[in-house]
């Protein structure tokens, strides 16, 4: 990192995503986002977070700027992140900081041209934005001998002179986008060990939902390693919301009863309907108004439109399917991006892949499913399974 004058301080500037346009709810969104930012950088030591005008400013101590940047660009609700230098609201100080920032960039990469763009929201500042840009640009040309290009500059040198903070930056990296986790509600995610459901959970988080996960475990048909794998997947999602509660439901007896007494071609749909009922009970007990699954339209036999309707028929809670329109490759790409893919492909069965018939029906009518269930009499077992689910704090 470049040596800075005492008036310069390392800063990370975070630009809000959609939270900025949320009108009356803005304050609440900002409160949640501030908490999430705080949580994301807490492991790096003490920091100072200020907010205002669609921005958060995070002062980081020592050489923590890069590490803070890495963590903050994964926080939902932030559209872009810039490493910046905070400086005094003084043209010379601003120019010195801009030269320092650009010099540091030049040491890492070739800079062909630049342009200075100033935003002055503090109207008490005695110079206009074009004046500041001109003076700072001149200082850069003098110090670094770099060409100015006002139309298609390779590097944009940003100067912002605000009521709370004056800073300079030369880089802008994309943030995670979306809405702050916890700002739109709490949902119950049906989490298996597969590729899809963790991605669905991540997408729900992206739209501001905090997750509660439910995993259906069928020992001895599924091993302890299968549960460990799900816990590992939950661990990938937990940091976004500062911990996650995983409910492990014992599904063996119910699944065996369905397998032994229901028509083979309906088995998967009946398993899924039963899972939804158990999930509904857990969700209701914890204030989750919706269920989230990793289903994608047409991906497997239980995920046809007809079967989705049949599965939805089993619960009063809406089932959200963030991956509905995703191709498998798109899901895999996201799974790699969020770090769940390598865990998901570990070869342990989950209970959805057990006792699956060779030719499952792709069109189970809700009435047929209801008739089959009437013969099974699972109500008491469903309640017990929800009640006795093991709670794992991730």
């Amino acid at each position, binding site marked *: 990192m470049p040596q800075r004058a005492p008036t310069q301080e390392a800063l990370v500037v975070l630009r809000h995503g959609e939270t900025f346009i949320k009108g009356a709810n803005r304050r609440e969104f900002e409160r949640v986002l501030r908490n999430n930012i705080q949580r994301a950088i807490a492991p790096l030591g003490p920091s100072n977070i200020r907010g205002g005008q669609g921005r958060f400013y995070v002062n980081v101590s020592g050489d923590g700027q890069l590490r803070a940047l890495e963590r903050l660009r994964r926080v939902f609700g932030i559209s872009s992140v810039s490493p910046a230098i905070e400086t005094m609201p003084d043209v010379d100080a601003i120019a010195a900081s801009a030269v320092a920032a650009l010099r540091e960039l030049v040491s890492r990469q070739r800079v062909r041209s630049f342009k200075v763009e100033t935003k002055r929201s503090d109207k008490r500042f005695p110079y206009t934005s074009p004046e500041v840009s001109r003076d700072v640009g001149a200082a850069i040309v003098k110090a670094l001998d770099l060409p100015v290009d006002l139309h298609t500059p390779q590097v944009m040198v940003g100067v912002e002179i605000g009521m709370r903070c004056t800073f300079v930056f030369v880089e802008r990296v994309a943030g995670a986008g979306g809405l702050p986790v916890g700002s739109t509600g709490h949902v119950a995610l049906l989490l298996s060990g597969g590729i899809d459901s963790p991605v669905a959970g991540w997408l729900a988080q992206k739209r501001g939902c905090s997750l509660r996960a439910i995993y259906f475990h069928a*020992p*001895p*048909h*599924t*091993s*302890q*390693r299968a549960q460990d794998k799900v816990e590992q997947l939950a661990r990938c999602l937990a940091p976004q919301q500062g911990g996650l509660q995983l409910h492990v439901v014992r599904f063996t007896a119910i699944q065996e009863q369905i397998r032994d007494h229901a028509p083979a071609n309906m088995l998967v749909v009946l398993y899924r309907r039963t899972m939804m009922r158990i999930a509904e009970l857990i969700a209701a007990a914890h204030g989750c108004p919706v269920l989230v699954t990793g289903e994608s339209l047409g991906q497997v036999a239980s995920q046809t439109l007809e079967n989705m309707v049949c599965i939805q028929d089993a619960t009063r809670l809406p089932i959200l399917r963030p991956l509905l329109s995703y191709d498998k490759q798109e899901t895999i790409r996201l799974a790699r991006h969020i770090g769940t893919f390598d865990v998901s492909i570990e*070869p*342990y*069965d989950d209970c959805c892949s057990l006792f699956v018939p060779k030719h499952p029906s792709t069109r189970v009518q809700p009435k047929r499913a209801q008739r089959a269930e009437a013969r099974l009499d699972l109500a008491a077992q469903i309640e017990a399974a929800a009640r006795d689910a093991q709670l794992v704090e991730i």
Partner: protein
Amino acid sequence: MTRSADRVVYLDNAATSPASADVIQGMVSALTKTFGNPSSRHCLGLLAEKAVRGARASVAQRFDVPPRQVLFTSGGTEALALAIWGIAKRHKRTGQVLVSAVEHAAVLKTVEMVKRLGHEVVTVPVCPGGWVEPSAIQRAMTDRTFLVCVMHVNNEIGIEQPVAAIAQTVKRHSPRCSVLVDTIQSFGVLDTSLGLLGADFAVASAHKLHGPKGVGALAMRSNVQLEGLWGGGSQEQGIRPGTENVPAIVGFGIAAKAGRGDAEQLKMACHTLVQPLIEAVSGAYVVGDAARLAPHIVAVAVPGRRSAVVVNALSDLGICVSSGSACSGRRSERSHVLEALGIPREHGVIRLSPSRFHTSDELQQAASVIAETTAGL
């Protein structure tokens, strides 16, 4: 729920085994007292060198070779690779390697890799009893065959191969052809004398006989020269350079002296475990030719049950058994050994490998739980 390790009945010693108290004591001493580098000139270096020398002598004794003909490695896999690569690189013309169809992946995958040198690899099938007939080796051999790999006791099904007869066949056909015997499962239970087996090379791994993980050995006939896999110091005659893992080698020495256990006692333990299971599960049978079964490993086929489900169910009850080789047990693919024997896919297979540390009460209780649980699945 994951069970605490001290409340399980561990019947998977073919995968790995708990270190014995003597081994632990010896290793602690090597870590804290004789911790020197054997190559150092000072007194602690000398003490460490002596400790390694003692361990080498006790391992060599099991192979019935002079200590100089034993090299320590990081384990069985490395010992096999050292032998296979060493022999293959020494053989300047392109030739042929024969392997039995039931070898461990450490052999099968490594011989696949030596194909890069231009050699051909031929897999010799086993008979339905699970062993390689010497005549099958004879049929497969050509003038170009320079290495035959055959394991002494199969790790998945416990079948003992007629190694001596195979070696005889090989040498009769081609005296210069090397015979590599994987004695990892038999070391410390059966006689693994190189002379008796007719082997040019044999390997062992300490953790199969209550020694530590991370140490193995390659035993060689006196007249063979091997090229190492990497360069370095002059340790292990320069063939396997690197500072010796003294604590593990010391542990290996102690374990080799004690052995895996009395063969009769282990055979009895296997019998105690298997009999109720065969009686309880309709159609259950011992895999392979019972007359060729080693005393300490047995595999039982249970029709209509999935191996993994039986293993999970027993694990939940505190009994550790295996569904085949631990090196592939986490994958759901069918074992190549069971495929080679033609065991139907619908027949789950449970491997039981007790140790010398069980009481007979413990074995009997475990046997009835195994039988009842498996029958109930």
